[in-house]
């Protein structure tokens, strides 16, 4: 029978992983089409704002300080989309009732996660570059860029995105996800030693910071853009990688969960 023949032709074939990844990346990009330009502009304004703002506080900014601040700004640019925009989008999907539709698509969780990571990276990189260029022009500094900037940027953006991903999927209540993501951003911007050294924090806060990934993200990114101003790079890579893995494991567990 014709119907049976059609049916046989459509015996489920799992599409190749790369196909799932590329189609989901296109899906995420198209889904953000209206917001993406705005996100990039806001990111640039935030990054450039930090870089130029610091110059308004003091008469003279020594070159090491300018280097320190501007390399920290790169970390803010790299983590903002993954940490706050991601959870916001998922919370909106849960409120609108479309979250389950997306979960029911035949896409491996790893492909969907990496697709979102790629899009978050695309939305973050322009601002990071612009912030550095503006810092160079404003403070007459020069960065010594080494190849280690590539793994540092990728790992920082990955861990930031996966932390946001875990908040999105491991917490059922979208209201709570939204709240925690926003609090986290305040904490990262205000109380994490990204733009300033941890030694300027009270010891107890410095201890907390040391266990969290944000200070270490700044260390590895700084190591790729400067020479001689950071140490303990290996430990920092380890810390950020472990946080990335933990966040990925939490997301994977949440996405595989069937209550």
């Amino acid at each position: 029978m014709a119907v049976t023949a059609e049916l046989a032709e459509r015996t489920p074939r799992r599409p190749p992983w790369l196909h799932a990844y590329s189609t989901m990346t296109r899906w995420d990009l198209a889904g953000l089409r209206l917001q993406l330009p705005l996100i990039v502009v806001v990111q640039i304004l935030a990054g450039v704002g930090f870089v130029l703002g610091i110059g308004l506080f003091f008469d003279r900014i020594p070159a090491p300080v300018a280097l320190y601040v501007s390399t920290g700004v790169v970390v803010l640019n790299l983590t903002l989309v993954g940490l706050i925009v991601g959870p916001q989008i998922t919370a909106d999907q849960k409120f609108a009732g479309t979250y389950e539709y997306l979960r029911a698509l035949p896409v491996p969780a790893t492909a969907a996660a990496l697709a979102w990571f790629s899009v978050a990276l695309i939305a973050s990189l322009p601002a990071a570059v612009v912030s550095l260029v503006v810092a160079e022009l404003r403070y007459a500094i020069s960065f010594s860029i080494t190849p280690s900037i590539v793994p540092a940027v990728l790992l920082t953006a990955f861990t930031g995105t996966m932390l946001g991903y875990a908040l999105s999927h491991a917490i059922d209540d979208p209201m709570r996800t939204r709240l925690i993501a926003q609090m986290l951003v305040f904490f990262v911007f205000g109380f994490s030693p990204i733009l300033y050294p941890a030694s300027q924090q009270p010891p107890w806060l410095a201890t907390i910071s040391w266990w969290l990934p944000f200070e270490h993200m700044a260390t590895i990114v700084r190591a790729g853009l400067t020479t001689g101003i950071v140490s303990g790079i290996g430990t920092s890579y380890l810390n950020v990688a472990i946080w990335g893995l933990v966040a990925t494991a939490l997301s994977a567990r949440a996405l595989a969960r069937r209550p």
Partner: protein
Amino acid sequence: MDPNGDGSFRAEGVTKVFNGSLRANDAITLHVEPGEVYGLLGPNGAGKSTLVKQVIGLLKPTEGRITLGPFDLVEDPAVARQLCSYLPQAQMPIESFKTREAIRLTGRIRGGDGATVDRRTDELIEALDLLEWRDVVGAKLSGGVKRLVGFSMVSVWPGRVVILDEPTNDVDPLRRRLLWDEVRRLGEWGSAVFLVTHNVMEAEKSVDRLAIIADGRLIAEGTPSSLKAQDRSFLRLQLMLVPGAETPALPPFVSHHTRVGHNLVTTIGQTDASHAIGWAQEQIGIGVAEEYALGATTLEDVYIRLTGHVSSDDGEG
């Protein structure tokens, strides 16, 4: 695994208990053959969505099996997602997608090859009369058009099971007809189509068989005519009451009644027809009712009798 070798969808004794006590699904057993359009009817909270979520692998049954041909959908949720396409009751997240792009991309995500998906996308856009919105983004579409785009996204590369949750919501009557033609075509492709709805009138016209679910249990199953057959010795007497009128005292031959707005629907025995007409005319005479209609019972009446609920679009026709 597939004893009948027919590729049918089977739910066997599916039970879902939440929080240790709430039985959202209670031993639901049903089967749907390839090509069949099967209605899942029931009031809100009856357990329809819970059943659907177990089929597509978002919830795990407490007990029971769900299979499609040789595939165990409970054991392997990844295969379940591959085999089932799902149109949720909520609108699709396509605010920034152009119509054609949304349909095409979903087809590709579902694993369809580029050329076939392109052809099928254009076919659906034409069949559902969506040409004028082909390159318009979702944010600019009306609810009904968005619904049709959602349906197209689900059926561009359909699974062997296609689950449509209230597919005709907000869709105008003309395009509803086009949509039903496309649902039929899914059947011809060999998909088993689940139509989840509480619009009984529409289901009666469009399904091959249906199940009525209430309080988590499957309380009736069959073709629309076989379900109505049980009520064949009854008639439906409908009274349009004067606005503001109280429900009049009902004569003893009325076996069942419901009131929605000014509309009083009663069920009477066939042999009481002449008494019923007399009573209805009397109600008009004393100014309680404006008009009446007497006819064969509909699936709606069966539904009301079984569930005690009135379906959503009652009175809309």
